[in-house]
């Protein structure tokens, strides 16, 4: 097609805390293509892009722009080279008009003041040139999300960018806005612009992009023509496991409901309701999966059940007791284990040692303390046992958690949460971004707990995981439960997809069946 307009050779970036974000990554985009950059959370996509845009600086490696070796030390340098970035979180001043945002930092002036008319004229000119209509006088805070994004794109173009980096642009868009954005991007491609498109939605990439670079744990897994690579291949390269991995499990023996959620609604203070009258119960001896595209209320639901978010409306019972207003401590005392989706925010303290992380919920229990005093010996014994049982790879329990790989970090979280006397386990994306072996071990542990009579509530965006592991399944869409399957094993991916995308929903009566009485 054409020669690379931008290329990076042997880029290595190690953050100050020792995390290897990029390891000898080669990356190159051709002029006039839409190039996808794919990878899971933490695979190093953002770091790589930050280095192109001058926010981070590589420790090793070289960047070439139009054949010239370049040093990009700041976003200003990047813009001079014609590189623009549309961030996931918009960098706009909401209280100013579109035109004012466009010309920010290079305002046309009339004496001391901003020449508003000229700003509007320039905005309209650029908007016409690229066929991206926008109301130049509208206030940014009044615009819909898709329009704000358009302002960002126009702003980059206005500053002369012909290489555009879009960081997960569709994450915040509605399907209509997404298809509109795709049209715009294709138009830009026709006009000779280059687009780097960061995403982890395979479908979108198939639809939009020409070539794809896949990153996995900081390494490049290669460059492919999108036409020539299948969805299965992409997901295998990205996640590093085969799409179908069988989990052996015995037939379920469901017992009494351990968790009962009734009429739960949340979001009265937000722009839209995040949960609308959610009802379900999870029984002991059963893995209940919650399927759904991320951002359909799962996060809020889990945080309310585990006491991290205050309840607004409805009731939650754990083990028959009303736990709606329990503190986290009371909920934990009710034998609840919780694997949170965000390891380094809720699941662990990176700057603390493995030992400190393993005892965080039981520092005052006789397991590790004698009265008020921490017992070094008990802690050592307890941690050594957990490190052995869960096969955490580390020198000893005094290693900082931050220094561990993602998989080992997750093992620390899982070891803490799944040890001890449990009646309910809430596993929120328990294997996201970790290696096959660790994921398998975690799956087996969850099945083992389920066999011993524990209720397991599994939330996962990984279809394969949720379909393989769940005994029963509910599907969430737009804050509601739209389907319940008593037996998840007969479900097909296509069927599930229909419910997840809101194309179909079951009747109220069918959904109601998920509520079991004590």
């Amino acid at each position, binding site marked *: 097609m054409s020669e690379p307009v931008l290329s990076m050779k042997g880029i290595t970036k190690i953050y100050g805390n020792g995390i290897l974000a990029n390891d000898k990554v080669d990356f190159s985009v051709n002029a006039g293509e839409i190039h996808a950059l794919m990878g899971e959370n933490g695979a190093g996509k953002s770091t790589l892009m930050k280095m192109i845009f001058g926010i981070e600086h590589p420790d090793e490696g070289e960047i070439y722009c139009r054949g010239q070796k370049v040093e990009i030390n700041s976003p200003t340098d990047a813009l001079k080279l014609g590189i623009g970035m549309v961030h996931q979180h918009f960098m706009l001043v909401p209280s100013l008009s579109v035109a004012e945002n466009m010309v920010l930092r290079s305002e046309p002036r009339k004496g001391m003041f901003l020449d508003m008319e000229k700003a509007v004229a320039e905005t309209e000119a650029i908007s016409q040139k690229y066929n991206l209509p926008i109301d130049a006088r509208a206030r940014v805070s009044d615009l819909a999300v898709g329009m704000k994004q358009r302002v960002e794109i126009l702003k980059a173009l206005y500053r002369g960018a012909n290489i555009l980096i879009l960081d997960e642009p569709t994450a915040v868009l509605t399907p209509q806005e997404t298809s509109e954005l795709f049209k715009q991007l294709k138009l830009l491609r026709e006009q000779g612009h280059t687009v780097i498109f960061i995403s982890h939605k395979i479908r979108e990439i198939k639809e939009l992009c020409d070539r794809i670079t896949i990153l996995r744990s900081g390494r490049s897994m290669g460059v492919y023509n999108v036409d020539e690579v299948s969805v299965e291949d992409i997901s295998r390269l990205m996640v590093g496991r085969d799409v179908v991995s069988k989990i052996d499990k015995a037939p379920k023996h469901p017992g009494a409901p351990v968790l009962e959620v009734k009429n739960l609604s949340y979001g009265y203070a937000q722009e839209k309701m995040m949960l609308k009258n959610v009802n379900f119960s999870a029984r002991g001896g059963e893995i209940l999966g919650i399927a759904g595209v991320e951002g359909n209320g799962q996060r809020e639901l889990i945080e309310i059940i585990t006491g991290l978010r205050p309840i607004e409306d409805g009731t939650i019972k754990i083990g028959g007791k009303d736990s709606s207003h329990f*503190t*986290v*401590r009371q909920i934990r005392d009710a034998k609840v284990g919780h694997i949170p989706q965000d390891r380094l925010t809720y699941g*662990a303290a990176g700057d603390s040692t493995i030992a*400190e992380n393993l*005892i965080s919920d039981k520092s005052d229990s006789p397991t590790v303390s004698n009265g008020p005093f921490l017992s070094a010996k008990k802690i050592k014994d307890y941690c050594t046992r957990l490190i052995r049982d869960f096969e955490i*790879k580390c020198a000893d329990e005094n290693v900082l958690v931050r220094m561990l790989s993602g998989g080992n970090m997750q093992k620390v979280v899982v070891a803490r949460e799944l040890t001890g006397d449990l009646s309910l386990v809430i596993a929120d994306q328990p294997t996201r971004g970790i290696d096959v072996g660790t994921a398998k071990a975690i799956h087996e542990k969850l099945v083992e707990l389920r066999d011993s009579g524990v209720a397991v509530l599994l939330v996962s965006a990984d279809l394969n995981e949720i379909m393989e592991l769940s005994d029963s399944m509910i599907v969430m869409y737009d804050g509601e439960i739209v389907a319940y399957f008593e037996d998840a094993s007969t479900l097909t991916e296509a069927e599930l997809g229909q419910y997840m995308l809101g194309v179909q929903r079951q009747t109220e009566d069918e959904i109601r069946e998920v509520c079991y009485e004590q």
Partner: protein
Amino acid sequence: MSNKKLLQFFGVIKTMLAILIAMVLAFLFIMMVSKEPLAAIKSFLTGPFSTVRRFGNLIEYFIPVCFTALGVCVMFSVGMSSVIGEGSVFFGGLLAAWVAISSGFTGMPAKLSSFLMAGAVCGVVAMIPMYLKLKFDADLFVGSLMLNYVLLYLGLYILNYVIRDPDVGMTASYAIPSGAVLGTLFKGTKVTSALILAIVAMVLVYVLMDKTHIGYKMRLIGSNMKFAKYSGVNIFAMCMLSSFLGGFLSGVGGAAEILGRHNRFQWMALPGFGWDGILIATIAGFKPKFVPIAALFIAYIKTGADIMNRTSDVASELVVVIQAFMILLIAAKGFLAGTQQKLIVKNIKAAAAQPAESEA
């Protein structure tokens, strides 16, 4: 070398280098302003050890800042900066004098009641800005800073209208009854039994912070508050307790100073021990076990500067300049960051070259 050790080692090197650079700058400054720079530097460096009295001065200064620095370690352990120590040390001194003057106790009960009152009241006061932070998200730093001045002016009011001795020419309280005055430990100095108390406090704070689940929970909050909350730690109770203990320790430090070295309470301004406590705690990396060394060091350069001031033509304000440089260099995350980064990169690469070893 593991990464943890590498970072720890680097922390020590950084601190030493910061001190060294600050000292070199100070000496350059002395060279410029002094007519006899060598004599000035000599009195600065060796002065504190030249006589028993001067070494006594060093220890006398060491006592109150030990308490305030320990208080800072406890308060900062939850990851939030309350600077109430300065007001607490002032108010603690005042309360101790007030209780000693008006309680009528003598001997042990007099001392005990003075210390406890100073500690308890200052502890409760220190909880106010933390309460406002936790309940109303009012900035803790600003809140605690402002409260220092509330305490100062409240204290001056009490001094002027409640415990002022009208028979002396200056603004001063009634004389502190001899029954409440702390005994001196060494002849020729004013090093009092408060030194023993300071050593006890160091051990207790060290044990509390490093060896009990209470200290562990506070540190957990400091390292990741969301994680602490998720783990079931009672954030409110722990933060309030850390503030109480911080205020308590500073208040006791003020009491030790007033009952040990002053006949009457006559502070008209904030004494500065609280600020020095923050300085010392910073040098100690907010670890109680390093407080004694850091406090001794700061006491040494303060005393040295004081002696230099009296024996040469260099003003003791110089020491403030040294302190400022040290704090800047120690607190500056970017200082030597480039070297540190290179070391880490090298270390990780070495580890990557031998994956079997690093995994084991």
